[in-house]
């Protein structure tokens, strides 16, 4: 039964495009069909076949449904790049929407909605109006979704032409699938609109709940998700709703189950009868547990949601802790989430069982999982006072296994347990002291020293033990030094020599305190510590409410409200400002926010605490002269230094940098970085944010071989980063140091290390923008000559959709700061053509031709350059500038 389409991927020799062109115009049907398949195959593997547009379009008028679908697929992909030619397809589309075959009618209206070309959109309105009232439900259900598509392209049009009312009528349609799609479309339109469009009344509610029974599984999801926004008037109504939704919990589709759970939880807030609530909790537990026998990816989604649900309704799964026991072959992400939930469900009743499990996990292979298991024991001790002793005895057993990282992790959590229950368990200190020698991680050492210092009076040889640490004092990381210092002060013994200013300062303060008033010193150093509390229910109530209202969605998986990661631009409104996604892990959205800051626009909404809010200003100008010295830039004129030093700190503190190493993967260290060009020099702008408990210092950086041979032009100058703060720096970069062979790409692999942590690796992208040199301007004649001298094979063109040029001059100005220089412009029919030039180091020029229709999305860019393989990088760079 299997097909043999792979033959279409086999490339013919050169001249592929002309050959295809010929075949597309063949008089034989079969040959044309094969040719279209070849075109689609080429499109799939990423070849540009847009030049065949008219030829493919010619095949559109066919009786053959399969061929028609392929042509439509091609149209969806390339119409935007050929808006003028796409118009030619309109007639066939409109004709198809009146075809006697409902499949063709639906196909035409579905495809038209996917073609985001304004002129086509205009022609879509009449057919869409017809299709919304079509006799065939298949056409109506397709048309319903098409209204949402149209709204996304042109909201006004939808409102003006009365499509919203037509869509609302479909909610009463007699076909369940039409109803479901209409609900989905309306819910989406409402999501993107500030005016009330789709308000669910108790009447629509009851109608939709009835429709649930007959819908497809997906339709049930659409309806349940839309209805979950409904606020019941009173407890009785809420109970009625819940009663009609609970049968959905038995559905085999996990999305239906989660959406039903979401809706029930929403309504339960209103239900006052404890019996009803208890009963509902009982009903929801089994389906939630069943989700854990699905595919691991679905399990993960379910576990992240269960984590939220048990925070609000701890009783639901109180008796089901066993189902969260990890299986040996569970993927690591499932194990980690199960562990979190086990901590949340741990109680005095089941703690013995839970501890046995944790102990088992602590002997597994995966180090991260083992550490988390040990921490989990500590968290249970802090959460359950009565179980603390048992937790400690398990920890002691683990210490006896003498697996290095288990011991260290155990000591860290025991310190927290000591802080939570002071003066209770110090009898075990002797056992802890036995493993003193094995400690080599700063956090574990510091914890041990804290314990010794804190309980100095009860440890006979406390001074000896501390002395053994003091011997190696100068080599210790600062975290350990600080703790050691505090501990020794506790022992009234503070004579230290060091060159770390923080350490020295604290030592001096202690020393002065001690020398003037030992009692006061005691008060300060031995002051009561805040009590460590159980952190397993970490979200505050309103955030939890919001997350629970988003069950099954991304928000519930990330445990973040949607607005912190959805960067979607609603409509082109003034308030639109691309937020920098908190904890984002890539570098794709950086440029626009940088611009917003430059324009002095209003600061980003407070909901997303931008990473730079806590940024400590770097010591003014201090690193800057060093950098300039290094690069031998002081020859630029003595007076410049002052200018730079005033200018620099402001800039460095300014725009947020893209996060390349999130704190989660850097054990608390977050690194954000971006390549910038300043005064003809390339810098790597970096920010280090320390979310660990210890200060980090001794930062070093290295770059892997890359296309442009970018490498550090000097040592990385970062002061010690204190816990909870961040530091910024500018690292000068040099080119052509270690050039990677092979075709050009933008990948830049970076390695960063410090004294406290292992080496971190992360990836960045090199944008050509920072490479364009200031001398890239060309004379017109030189441009023309170069253009002619380069062979046609060196010309590469690309359509960049989604970019609107509203004003030619503004675009020129926009490009100039990036060293893309304007040469000439001309008009060709309704199109504006711009010529520009740019140059990258080693004198490689780019000759640029931009073609666009003013005010219409879509830009055609053609470049000629001696290095055409650089073209993809160039297009990427251009897109970045124009989109900002």
């Amino acid at each position, binding site marked *: *039964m*299997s*097909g043999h*389409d*792979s033959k*279409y991927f086999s490339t013919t020799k050169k001249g592929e495009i002309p050959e295809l062109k010929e075949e597309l115009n063949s008089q034989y049907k079969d040959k044309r069909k094969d040719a279209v*398949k070849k075109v*689609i*195959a080429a499109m799939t593997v990423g070849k540009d076949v847009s030049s065949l547009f008219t030829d493919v379009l010619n095949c559109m008028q066919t009786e053959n449904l399969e061929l028609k*679908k*392929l042509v439509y697929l091609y149209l969806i992909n390339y119409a935007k790049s050929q808006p003028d030619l796409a118009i030619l397809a309109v007639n066939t589309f409109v004709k198809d929407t009146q075809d006697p075959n*409902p499949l063709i009618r*639906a196909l035409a209206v*579905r495809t038209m909605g996917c073609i*985001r070309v304004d002129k086509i959109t205009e022609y879509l309105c009449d057919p869409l109006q017809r299709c919304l009232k079509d006799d065939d*439900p298949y056409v109506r*259900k397709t048309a319903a979704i098409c209204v949402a598509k149209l709204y*996304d392209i042109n909201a006004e049009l939808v409102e003006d032409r009365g499509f919203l009312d037509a869509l609302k009528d479909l909610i009463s349609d007699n076909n369940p*699938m039409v109803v479901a799609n209409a609900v*989905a479309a309306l*819910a989406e339109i409402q999501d993107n609109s500030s005016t009330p469009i789709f308000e669910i009344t108790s009447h629509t509610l009851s109608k939709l709940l009835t429709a649930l029974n007959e819908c*497809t599984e*997906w339709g049930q999801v*659409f309806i349940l*998700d*839309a209805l979950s926004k409904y606020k019941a008037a009173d407890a009785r109504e809420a109970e009625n709703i819940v009663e009609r939704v609970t*049968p959905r919990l*038995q*559905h*085999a589709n996990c*999305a239906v189950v*989660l959406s039903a759970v979401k809706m029930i939880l929403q309504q339960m807030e209103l239900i006052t009868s404890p019996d009803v609530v208890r009963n509902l909790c009982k009903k929801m537990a*089994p*389906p939630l547990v*069943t989700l854990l026998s699905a*595919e691991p*990816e679905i399990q*993960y989604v379910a576990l992240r949601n269960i984590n939220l649900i048990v925070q609000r309704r701890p009783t639901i799964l109180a008796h089901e802790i066993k189902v969260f026991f990890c299986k*040996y*072959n569970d993927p*690591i*992400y499932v194990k980690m989430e199960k562990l979190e939930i086990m901590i949340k469900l741990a109680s005095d009743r089941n703690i013995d069982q839970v501890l046995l*499990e944790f102990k*088992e996990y602590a002997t*597994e292979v995966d180090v991260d999982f083992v550490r988390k298991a040990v921490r989990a024991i500590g968290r249970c001790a802090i959460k359950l006072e009565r179980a603390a002793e048992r937790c400690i005895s398990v920890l002691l057993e683990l210490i006896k296994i003498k697996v*290095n990282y288990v011991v260290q992790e155990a000591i860290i959590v025991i310190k927290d347990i000591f802080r939570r229950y002071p003066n209770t368990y110090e009898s075990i200190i002797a056992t802890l002291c036995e493993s003193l020698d094995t400690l080599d991680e700063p956090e574990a050492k510091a914890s041990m020293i804290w314990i010794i210092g804190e309980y100095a009076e009860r440890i006979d040889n406390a001074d000896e033990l501390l002395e053994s640490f003091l011997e190696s004092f100068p080599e210790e990381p600062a975290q350990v030094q600080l703790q050691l210092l505090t501990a020794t002060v506790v022992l009234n013994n503070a004579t230290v020599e060091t060159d770390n200013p923080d350490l020295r300062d604290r030592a001096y303060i202690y020393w002065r305190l001690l020398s003037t008033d030992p009692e006061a010193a005691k008060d300060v150093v031995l002051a009561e510590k805040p009590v460590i509390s159980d952190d397993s229910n970490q979200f505050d109530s309103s955030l939890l409410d919001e997350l629970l209202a988003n069950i099954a*969605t*991304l*928000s519930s998986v990330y445990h973040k409200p949607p607005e912190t990661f*959805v*960067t*979607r631009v609603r409509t082109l409104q003034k308030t639109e400002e*691309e937020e920098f996604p908190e904890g*984002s*892990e*890539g570098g794709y*959205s950086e440029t626009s926010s940088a611009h917003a800051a430059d324009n002095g626009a209003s600061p980003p909404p407070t909901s997303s605490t931008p990473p730079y809010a806590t940024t400590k200003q770097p010591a003014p100008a201090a690193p800057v002269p060093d950098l300039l010295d290094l690069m031998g830039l002081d020859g630029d004129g003595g007076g410049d230094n002052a200018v730079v030093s005033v200018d620099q700190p402001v800039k460095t503190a300014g725009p947020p940098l893209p996060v390349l190493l999130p704190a989660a*993967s850097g054990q608390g260290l977050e690194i954000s970085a971006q390549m910038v060009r300043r005064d003809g020099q390339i810098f790597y702008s970096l920010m280090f944010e320390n979310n660990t408990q210890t200060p980090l210092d001794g930062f070093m950086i290295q770059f892997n071989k890359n296309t442009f041979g970018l490498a550090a032009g000097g040592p990385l100058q970062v002061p010690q980063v204190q816990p909870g703060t961040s530091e910024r720096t500018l690292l000068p970069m040099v080119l052509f140091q270690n050039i990677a062979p092979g075709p050009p790409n933008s990948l830049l692999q970076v390695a960063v290390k410090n004294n406290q942590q292992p080496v971190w690796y992360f990836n960045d*992208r090199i944008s050509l923008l920072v490479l364009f040199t200031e001398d890239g301007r060309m004379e017109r004649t030189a441009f023309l000559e170069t253009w002619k001298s380069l062979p046609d094979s060196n010309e590469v063109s690309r359509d960049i959709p*989604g970019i609107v040029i509203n004003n030619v001059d503004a675009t020129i100005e926009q490009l100039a700061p990036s060293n893309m220089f304007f040469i000439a412009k001309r008009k060709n029919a309704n199109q504006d053509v711009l010529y520009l030039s740019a140059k990258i180091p080693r004198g490689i020029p780019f000759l640029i031709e931009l073609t666009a229709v003013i005010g219409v999305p879509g830009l055609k860019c053609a470049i000629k350059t001696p290095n055409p393989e650089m073209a993809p990088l160039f297009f990427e760079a251009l897109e970045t500038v124009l989109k900002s």
Partner: protein
Amino acid sequence: MPVAASAIYFLNLRGDVLINRLYRDDVGGNMVDAFRMHIMQTKELGTCPVRQIGGCSFFYMRISNVYIVIVVSSNANVACAFKFVVEAVSLFKSYFGGAFDEDAIRNNFVLIYELLDEIMDFGYPQNLSPEILKLYITQEGVRSPFSSKPTDKPVPNATLQVTGAVGWRREGLVYKKNEVFLDIVESVNLLMSSKGSVLRCDVTGKVLMKCFLSGMPDLKLGLNDKIGLEKESQLKSRPTKSGKSIELDDVTFHQCVNLTRFNSEKTVSFVPPDGEFELMKYRITEGVTLPFRVLPTIKELGRTRMEVNVKVKSVFGAKMFALGVVIKIPVPKQTAKTNFQVTSGRAKYNASIDCLVWKIRKFPGQTEPTLSAEVELISTIAEKKSWTRPPIQMEFQVPMFTASGLRVRFLKVWEKSGYNTVEWVRYITKAGSYEIRC
């Protein structure tokens, strides 16, 4: 928002795009590069199936040698997205007749494009039922292997069936002989401590059906589950016949089952799809009969020698037997030499999974074969970490046995033409994750 996807990509293990479909305009066409660079080429691969890179989120699953990646930029419904992928893959499989892998995708790319256009619109999943889609998406004359009536020309009312209330069954099916096959397949999941106490034990069962029925039949299934029996005796106001009744912890049903009716009357009634499908899934934790007990003793004798004794006891009826029993007993990585003695079956040391693999093809009930082995280890100097002792794992199949004791009491078929049906019922119990710590 129930949107499930803005774009879907099928990549091979190298990261080449096999096929892709953009459903929405809010993610760029080059987002797959970001996936390659930030997930595929890093250690991140496999650490979390949902990741945010820049302004977009990626959900991915690996199925054989293909990565299926969904990209969104809104607060999409992740559960819906993953379920969609799972369903789409089973749909493709049913079209290609079996495997879903890189070659199958390349060989059927036109068909996949066509299906992708049909099963999702603007990011909203539509009808994914293979039965119905095959009515009008036909490549090279795909036809139902079950039906005796060929369906070469597209059925004129296909569109009504796609959107209809019974969106999983087409009309006008005719079979000479009306048959229903019903399989109850149970997987026993067990986690037992080294001391022999049961830490976690449950049964996940499936009721699989194969229907070759004419017309639009109405089916009703009765099991010996507690709630169903109680409800029935209530309705008939007489006690049902005695016998074991089973308490089901949870049941989920195929979309053909009328859930509202199940909720009120506790009966499983449905109009089945044609051919093979999974009618229901259930989970049971109480009263599970474990088919096997495993009693391991593993002694580490010094640093270079280990003694392994494993006794496996079958506790099901003496007349029954288990098939394909495999017991995997873990040994340390530095195993050099092994000597076995087994009273039944064959055993060998498999170095690639660090296990002694003991296979018994036919395992009668009420017997207890043993394996005793001596394992010699290479002594290593730098062996700081002690051996972590992974659990013993077991595989088996026991025909005509259900660990839960579940039985089919009746399966009724009504069709307006009033034909007779032949019903076949089979039971089988398999090992799910059957782990014994040692």
